[in-house]
């Protein structure tokens, strides 16, 4: 039994390492060859775990071989568009201004219901709202709505708005991130001032504290409503 435990640990570490090498894309938008690879890896990894007579290397070596193969394939796809199309296929327009392209649907072996499902997933419930719908190589559908149904943007309204900035987590679940503090160009004095203002005695009392580049602070204590305030990089807190 102990052998199986150790084998499971070894294989887990190896598979984790291999997925990191292959990149994050593996986890989400998978191309056909990536999906095949994922399925085989899952199967291969379990063989030496379940069968003690099989050496761990018999599981690991094929996994490593597949990773090398994947890398070569990805490289070839990068350099040759034709090869990439051969391996992954190419995006297909399933809805155009004339409506549904039935021939494209037949080629893709999908039904009209599947198209509707994908459209609803993109937030469009009526087909007349859609100008183009493209079936991507990873199986997801990209939708371009007709101008009348496109979401209104700030640019459309010709409004002047402040640039949106990314909030930085300073405290998360009672833990202060000194690294993020540096990124936000704040010091611990500023944080303690914010905490005082928010009525928190210690960092541990805070569920979340974020600051964006405009100095907007979001602070929420455990089991309490959040508060917002403004901050200057010198440790002063504004209302």
């Amino acid at each position, binding site marked *: 039994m102990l052998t199986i435990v150790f084998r499971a640990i070894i294989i887990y570490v190896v598979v984790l390492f291999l997925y990191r*090498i292959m990149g994050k894309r593996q986890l989400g938008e998978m191309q056909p060859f990536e999906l095949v690879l994922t399925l085989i890896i899952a199967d291969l990894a379990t063989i030496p775990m379940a069968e003690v*007579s*099989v*050496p761990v*290397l018999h599981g690991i070596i094929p996994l*490593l*071989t597949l*990773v*090398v193969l994947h*890398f070569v394939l990805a490289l070839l796809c990068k350099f040759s568009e034709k090869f990439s199309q051969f391996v992954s296929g190419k995006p297909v327009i399933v809805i155009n201004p004339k409506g549904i392209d039935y021939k494209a649907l037949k080629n893709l072996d999908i039904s009209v219901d599947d198209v509707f499902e994908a459209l609803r997933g993109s937030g469009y419930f009526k087909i007349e709202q859609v100008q183009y719908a493209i079936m991507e190589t990873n199986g997801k559908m990209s939708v371009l709505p007709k101008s009348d149904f496109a979401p209104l943007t700030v640019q459309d309204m010709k409004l002047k708005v402040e640039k949106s900035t990314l909030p930085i987590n300073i405290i998360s679940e009672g833990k202060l991130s000194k690294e993020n503090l540096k990124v936000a160009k704040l010091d611990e004095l500023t944080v303690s001032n914010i905490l005082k203002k928010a009525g928190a005695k210690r960092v541990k009392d805070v569920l979340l504290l974020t600051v964006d580049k405009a100095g907007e602070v979001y602070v929420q204590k455990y089991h309490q409503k959040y508060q917002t305030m403004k901050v200057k990089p010198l440790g002063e807190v504004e209302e």
Partner: protein
Amino acid sequence: MTKWLWFKLLAVLSILAVVIGMCVLEDRVVKTSLAAVNNRCYEIEAAIERNGGIVNGEVASLVDNLEYRWFKDEAGMCYLVNHKNTEQLGVEIVRLKTYIDEEEEIEFYVSLNIIKNYVETFQHFMGASVENIL
């Protein structure tokens, strides 16, 4: 190229080197171990001919030597070869000793031939060949 890409390329090249290295190592270890078993089998056969039977000190000593070497090599082979594939060889080697004790010459020859056959056919079944790949 970014640092991450360089790392990825280095990792993939290292993996490739490891895979090739392991294949070569497996081939060498298996060939060396099985060749050693095969040679000892022929030595046992020659000793039987010289002494006119299996019940004598020389054959017993050679069988002991075969057993010792095989179990030593098998420990290393376990990292590379499915244990089930080497199990039978170990069983037959242990049987040889019993047959000497029981003075069962025919059974002894049967086991010895099974071992020789196993060694000769192992490469055929497990080695890299078009038949095995397909």
